[in-house]
C-alpha cells in the first residue's frame, strides 16, 4: 500500500516542481509550488512523520505560500518575457545538471536500500513523540526558537514599517 502511494506522490511532486520552473506566469508557479509542498507532506506521512506532514501543510503550504503570493503582488509580476539565455547557462547548464543528478543518484543509491518504505509502518512521528523529545531532551533549542522568532518579528517590522 505504501510503495504505490509513494510513487504516485513522488511523481506528482516532480511534475509539479517542473511546472514551477517552466511556468511563465509567477502565480501559476506559486500554485504549482503548493502542489509540490503538499506532495512532500504525503511523503513525510508515508515515512511515519505525521506531525511533520501536518506542519508542512500548515506552515509551508499555508503561511509561507502567502508570503510568496504577496511578493508576486508587491512586485506586480506579470508574465515573464523570454530572455536571451546567457552563454554560461547554454554551454554549462546541461553538463552541470548531469553532474548534479549523478551526484544525487550516487548518494541515494549508495546510502539508502529498499528498506526505506518499511520505516513508515513502525516509526512514530506523531505530536506526542515529537513533544516528548522536544520538551525533555531539546529544551534549549526550543527556547532559542522563541528568540529566533522574536528577532524575526522585529526584523519584519523594521524592514516593512515606513517610520518606527
Amino acid at each position: 500500500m505504501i510503495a504505490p502511494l509513494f510513487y504516485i506522490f513522488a511523481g506528482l511532486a516532480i511534475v509539479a516542481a517542473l511546472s514551477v520552473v517552466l511556468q511563465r506566469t509567477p502565480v501559476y508557479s506559486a500554485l504549482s509550488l503548493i502542489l509540490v509542498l503538499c506532495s512532500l507532506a504525503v511523503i513525510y506521512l508515508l515515512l511515519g512523520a505525521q506531525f511533520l506532514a501536518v506542519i508542512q501543510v500548515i506552515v509551508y503550504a499555508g503561511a509561507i505560500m502567502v508570503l510568496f503570493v504577496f511578493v508576486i503582488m508587491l512586485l506586480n509580476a506579470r508574465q515573464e518575457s523570454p530572455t536571451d539565455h546567457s552563454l554560461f547557462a547554454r554551454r554549462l547548464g546541461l553538463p552541470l545538471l548531469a553532474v548534479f543528478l549523478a551526484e544525487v543518484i550516487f548518494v541515494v543509491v549508495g546510502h539508502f536500500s529498499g528498506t526505506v518504505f518499511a520505516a513508515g509502518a513502525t516509526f512514530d512521528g506523531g505530536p506526542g513523540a515529537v513533544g516528548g523529545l522536544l520538551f525533555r531532551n531539546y529544551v534549549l533549542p526550543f527556547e532559542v526558537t522563541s528568540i529566533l522568532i522574536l528577532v524575526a518579528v522585529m526584523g519584519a517590522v523594521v524592514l516593512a514599517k515606513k517610520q518606527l
Partner: protein
Amino acid sequence: MLEAYLPVLVHFLVVLALGLIILGLSAWVGVKRPSPEKLAPYECGMPPVGDARERFSISFYLVGMLFILFDVEVAFLFPWAVVYKSLKWPGFLEMFLYIAILLAGYLYIWKKGALDWSR
C-alpha cells in the same frame, strides 16, 4: 498506524472526483451562448474597474510576515499540549518562558503600531 489516515485519502479522492464531476458535467451538459457581458470578469455586478494586478501596500506583507511567525509559535503548542500531562510543572515553565519571550515581540509590534493600518 498509517491506516488511520485512510479516511484522509478517501476524502482527498472524493474531493478530486467531485471537482472533476462538477467541472466536467457543466462543460458537457451546459449550454454555451457567450456574450461580451457574460465573458467579462464578475466584479460585484458593476463594470470592472482597471486591472486586478496592481501593486499592493507593504502593510499586507507586514501582516503576512507576522502571521507566519506567530503561526510557527502556535505550531509548537500542539506537541506541547499532547504531552503536557506527563511533563508536569517543568513543561509548564518551559512553555511559559517561550510564550513570555514571544509576548515581548507582540508588545513590540503593538507599541510600534505595526498592526495599525492607517499609520
